[in-house]
């Protein structure tokens, strides 16, 4: 190990302090929500300044949320969408990214242009809905997966990762008699586990957070994903002709916690795999 200079040591110190501050800034709001969810609604409302511990401990918010049947069906639906959706998206994206990254594929620029073009032009809500309706996906849980199965940005990231795999590997596989399918599945995919892990996370999170398409494409409440239910709880509707109850603040915060905790719990495991994946990529690359 080479000796660190004074400048490097000082920088290292600043770096640690800076990153610690950044972490506090990132963490505190979530901590605030956690503490608020255990607080008494009435006292919470008039609270100002930092909230370091629950203001008037109360579990009322959680009681209401746990009694809410919608939350649990929403959970089930969201799990289905996240798991199935992520698998489908990964398979389709990586399959498409492979030919698009091959220099030997003559029309790759044409297809690439065709795909990137969709990032700039869209038909808009209603025409898109008409297609979803025509293929029979209206009010189907698949309407939350299939119409968003491929994300163009992710496809480009995947393609870039594939392109970074040295041509020599592919050529030697070809010499051994492997066709494109075999090269893709046996050689390229294992080499890009890191990127696959990242994309799995990207897709997973976007499926987890999606609600807008659900609000348009679904009309049976039994199919609503969690985020949609959550949004209904968090946003009081502004209907003039009805008197809305003041939704107790702690209920909102409890809803946030209940719906965010699973993904936070899953995250460290994903991250471990993901860091490992990064390392594999680094060694092989």
């Amino acid at each position, binding site marked *: 190990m080479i000796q660190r200079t004074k400048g490097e040591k000082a920088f290292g110190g600043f770096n640690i302090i800076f990153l610690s501050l950044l972490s506090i800034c990132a963490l505190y709001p979530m901590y605030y929500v956690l503490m608020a969810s255990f607080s008494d*609604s*009435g*006292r919470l*409302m*008039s609270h100002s300044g930092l909230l370091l511990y629950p203001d008037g401990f109360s579990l009322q918010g959680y*009681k*209401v949320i746990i*009694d*809410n*049947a*919608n939350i649990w*069906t929403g959970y089930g639906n969201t799990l289905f969408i996240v798991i199935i959706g992520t698998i489908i998206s990964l398979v389709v994206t990586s399959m498409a990214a492979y030919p698009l990254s091959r220099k030997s594929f003559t029309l790759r620029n044409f297809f690439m242009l065709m795909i990137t073009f969709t990032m700039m032009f869209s038909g808009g809500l*209603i025409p898109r*809905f*008409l297609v979803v*309706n025509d293929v*029979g996906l*209206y009010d189907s849980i698949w309407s939350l997966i299939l119409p968003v199965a491929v994300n163009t940005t992710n496809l480009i990231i995947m393609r870039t990762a594939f392109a970074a795999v040295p041509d020599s590997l592919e050529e030697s596989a070809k010499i051994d008699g492997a066709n494109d399918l075999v090269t893709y599945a046996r050689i390229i995919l294992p080499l890009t586990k890191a990127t696959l892990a990242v994309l799995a996370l990207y897709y997973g999170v976007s499926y987890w957070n999606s*609600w*807008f398409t*659900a*609000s*348009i494409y*679904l*009309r*049976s*409440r*039994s199919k*609503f994903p969690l985020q*949609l239910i959550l*949004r*209904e709880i968090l*946003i*009081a*509707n*502004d209907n*003039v*002709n*009805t*008197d*809305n*109850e*003041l*939704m*107790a603040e702690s209920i909102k915060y409890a809803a946030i916690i209940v719906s965010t905790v699973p993904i936070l719990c899953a995250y460290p495991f994903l991250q471990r795999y993901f860091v490992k994946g990064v390392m594999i990529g680094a060694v092989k690359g």
Partner: protein
Amino acid sequence: MKHTQRILALLMALCLILVSACTGDENSSSQESSQQEASQATESSVTEDSTAPPAEGPESYSMPISEETITLSLFSQLDSKASVSIGTMEDNYTMQYYESISGVHIQFFHPSSATSIGEALNVMISSGEYTDLIGSIMNASDGLDTLIENDVILRLNEYIDQYGYYLSQVFEEYPEFYTQVLTYEGNIGLYPTSRLDPSTRYFESFVIRQDWLDTLGLEKPTTVDEWYTVLKAFATQDPNGNGQNDELPFVGNSNEQMGVYRLGSLFGFNACFYKEYACSILDGKVTFAANAPQFEDYVTTMAQWYAEGLLDPEYASTDATSWQEKVLSDLGGCFYGKMNGGIGTLLGSYDYENRDPDFNLEPIGYAVTEDGNSYDFYSQEIFDQGGIAISTACEHVKEAIQWMDYMYSEEGQIMCSFGEEGVTFEYDDQGVPHYTEMITDAENLSLVQAIAKYTMGGIAPRMVNDLYYWDAVMSFDQQRMVYDAVSVSTTERKVPQSLKYSMEDQDRLTMLMGDIQTYYQETLNAFIMGTKPISELQQFRDTLNSMGLEEAISIMQASYDSYISNNA
């Protein structure tokens, strides 16, 4: 497989269009046959009523509407009070009870409340797969006339004449209700929801901290000058007694339903864009707020109040609920609020133990202007712009009409609001219904939430805002005072809610008002907050005119004129 399904669907749609076209014709055979069926049904269960109605009036009927259970699908928003405890109105006790007596099962489709109901409606309409019954139909981007013309929903005039026994009686009793419901083309496109009893049409008012007034020895303000005195006293004399000048005399939020814009009524005009495009009727003319003679006085006063700290500096803030927090934490002294959501909820959730035990909110009426009148722009008409339409996909039109119509009968109204006698409510000696403990003691639910779980009180798909319900949910006397405080004001300057426009006029009006709304709201705020000097008022008016305000107003004026001549 898929192909045949689609062809089938198409054929069905064609049939439905044909059927609906036929039934629209008075002399059609299909209608006669259904009429026969209906009269047979009533004969089989002979009642005294059956002889009572005049020959050409709608036939009476009795429960059950259908001997065999039929299913109707209904598109209707699930009220947030109900969604706390149930996932669909099919789990609502009264809905189940109504099914058991009527033989009509309602399959609910509740769109998400995360997007506007209008959006969800537009989507359903463009999908071509309509539910049998469509709630909140007035929120669709197309007007009822357009929807009828395009065979999305049925014209109900003839059906109501034939089957709408109770609604027809109500129409006779309240002719103005009937004219309010008619569209520009003379159609009835929906089964209307209504506020038949006058006291149910008033549910908003200015609200003040009465205990602060008492502490400072002040009376409820009745003129703009008195308002100033009271707000000034709130700001300077420390009514919350914490030794700091932290009071925010008037609080509101940017959602202009509840904001500072309502204070325009103190000056005798409507400054609130949300209500009839910020227009008032002044000397028989539809007048836009900025062009009202009172406008300058209003903005000048508001700017002065803002500068003196009488208006919450954050009144335009993005947070829709923070004004309530401010009231609950003894900062806010006066606001514009709803009877239940404002007064009731705040009185109910205030922390009396740890805060001011004397906390008291009371409604105050609209201020008396220079001409000696006070003006109300915000009460409702009988027809409150809600209701359920029958789509062209419906195969049981008669039953659908009767299912909705029954909710207009006296028993039906009580059933909607209170449910089943002996289970969810009991009558007292005077014959007044009261909720049973099943509702009043429901665990983990507030009163209105429990009502929404077990009955249709105050929530869709009930038809009438009924007085008993109105009375039963008021936990505090202060809520009852709203009616007395507000109903004394005259509505002569209020633009009628049910002005009717042709399809083209409505489109034009919406288009013109889009930019005008943005410009009006942001400039009004700039005037009040002092970021724009009031000397630029003329420029403000000129810009508005350059945006086509005059044309928009002339469209409204024409509609108003015909409204007046129709009601004369």
